């Protein structure tokens, strides 16, 4: 056992053990997410609200990471697609009286269609150009929402009906948690399918992906559209949880917040952003509540954290966890035979 210390490709047994380890890890996280509203500090309504924002942010960050982490397209118009879903769902409920439960999926559909068009127009470009074009589309959408006050009520804000007839945050938490699991589940399945393989190939090396017969634009557009659809769906939840929509929802600084969470969590992992969003949003909520005299402090900390991650730890939180767990695992398997400290 001690003969081979460093192998580059894991054997079948190791891979199995790794998969089992990952399953246990995921199960623990899911159990924590489900049970946490019953653990003392989180039983209060304030904390439950933080948990709802945490789960919502987690789902945003997962959908964002699906494009940013896998195909290397940073969607700077992400918040605009969230807003598009929110406004669609909200307007359907307000003007036509359609149930929010259906409206949310209509919002997802509209966001997906606009995402598809945006993707078809912009994804022939890559890198910074695609990011900036998505940003421009987002700005145009925000301008439109502002400019059509007789439809969207502009900056006065659109009051939307609530999803449930209750003041308790707990049911909302489970709904958004369900949406988070749905998002992460579907996107995980896609990532581990053949399409996902193509995404990763494109993200890692475009030229060689092309050489192996992948039509990059098609896969980029599929990925982008899917991400936008989830953004729209989550926007629908936003609309019927907060009950008020303003054009500010589509602003770029919200995209940057999601981006910060996704990168702090660890790009290209999906679970990293989902996990880190909870503590970040709870801390944000606490800071906002405790230090009302110091507005913007939590965002300064966010920004500093994002800068630090970008410079020193590009793998983010997920990278730290993976490294730590590998180290522990190595130490455990090697300890009986050799006294070499695994470092």
């Amino acid at each position: 056992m001690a003969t081979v210390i460093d192998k580059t490709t894991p054997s079948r047994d190791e891979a199995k053990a790794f998969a089992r380890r990952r399953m246990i890890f995921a199960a623990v996280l899911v159990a924590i997410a489900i049970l946490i509203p019953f653990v003392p500090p989180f039983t209060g309504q304030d904390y439950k609200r933080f948990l709802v924002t945490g789960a919502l942010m987690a789902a945003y960050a997962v959908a964002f990471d699906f494009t940013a982490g896998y195909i290397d397209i940073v969607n700077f118009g992400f918040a605009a697609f969230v807003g598009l879903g929110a406004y669609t769902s909200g307007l359907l409920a307000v003007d036509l009286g359609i149930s929010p439960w259906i409206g949310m999926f209509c919002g997802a559909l509209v966001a997906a269609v606009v995402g598809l068009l945006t993707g078809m127009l912009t994804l022939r470009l890559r890198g910074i150009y695609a990011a900036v074009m998505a940003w421009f589309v987002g700005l145009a959408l925000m301008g439109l929402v502002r400019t059509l006050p007789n439809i969207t009520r502009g900056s006065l804000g659109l009051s939307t009906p609530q999803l449930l007839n209750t003041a308790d945050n707990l049911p909302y938490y489970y709904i958004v948690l369900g949406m988070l699991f749905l998002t992460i589940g579907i996107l995980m399945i896609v990532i581990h399918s053949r399409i996902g393989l193509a995404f990763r190939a494109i993200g890692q090396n475009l030229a060689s992906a092309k050489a192996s017969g992948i039509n990059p634009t098609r896969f980029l557009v599929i990925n982008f559209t899917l991400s936008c659809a989830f953004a729209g769906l989550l926007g629908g939840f936003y609309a019927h949880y907060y009950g008020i929509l303003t054009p500010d929802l589509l602003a770029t600084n919200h995209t940057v917040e999601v981006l910060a969470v996704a990168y702090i969590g660890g790009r290209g992992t999906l679970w990293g952003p989902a996990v880190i969003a909870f503590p970040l949003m709870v801390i944000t909520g606490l800071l906002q509540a405790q230090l009302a005299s110091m507005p913007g402090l939590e965002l300064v900390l966010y920004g500093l954290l994002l800068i630090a991650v970008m410079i020193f730890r590009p793998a983010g939180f997920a990278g730290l966890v993976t490294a730590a767990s590998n180290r522990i695992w190595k130490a455990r398997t090697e300890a009986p035979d050799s006294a070499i400290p695994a470092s």
Partner: protein
Amino acid sequence: MTTTPATAPTNLRRVPLVKRFLTFTWLTIGLAALVLVGFAFVQPSIVVDTFVTGGMWALMAAGLALVFGVMNIPNFAHGEFFMIGSLVAYFVFTPINNAVYNDPSGTTLLKIFGPFPGMVIAALVGFAIGAVLEVILFRPLRRRSREQWVMNTFLLTAGISVVLVNGDELIFGNDFRGASRYWDVPPLQILGVSVSMDRAAVFVIAMVTILLFSLFLLRTRTGRAMRAVAQDEAGAQMAGISLNRIFVLTMGLSCGLAALAGASLLWLYPSSPTVGQQPLYLAWYVVILAGLGNVQGAIIGAFIVSLLQTVTVYYVGVDWVDVLPTLFIIVILLFKPSGLFGSEVKGVWEQ
């Protein structure tokens, strides 16, 4: 879709003159010029407005283009230097302005030159902060890895932007700090349009700065070194140019120009944490329209964007100023993805 082939510049001379100017780029510029000339007869105020705001966007966009051209950094925090500039100008100008009001008799000199200290100090502060950011943030990142440099620095500057905007809110609060005017004199008459002294001054400041900036880039040793780094980093280094020095200088200069723009427009954009957002995306429209990293193109592009804005404001309504120009720019970019003056940019953004 229709990017110019990489070999185009070399055999440019063999292309007939008529054909050379019948490109999409020249058609757009020609059309813009024609529209301007037309409005000079119909609605002269459009022409004046276009040049006044265009000058400032040119100042913003030239800095943004310079940093991308030399350092390959797409600066998302460029608008925050506009904000810093207006903040500094406010704190310098307000005491001067109060002195003028308290003693209206004997301070003609202060009345004429009062606004300038604020602008100069703002530009210097912008320069200093930009230079510091290069040293403490971009240099460590450059040393660690240049993989996916363009995208990583874009996200890094997004982080910087969040810190600066919210830091401003944290320290100075959400108030608007402005000055109603810089020069308290009756408006000038240009083309039969009355133009306030502030607007005219802004245009002159922009033009003088751009002229000095161009002279610096074209005629001085340092400017030449900067252009050499933009063309070929390794080659420039071999020729004995200190990259670190050029990077610090470039970042500082770019941020200084943005701060100067913010300071000059204090009377139009009162300082607040989010004041830099509109200038930021306008500068980005310009830079993307002109082709990333093209400084001269950015100056022309600024006037095109400004024309789009002004015409929208006059004929469609001020509400549409965020929508129509954006859509128009998106349409132009569909035909010319690398920008009006951009050549093949593949090498830069796919490295």
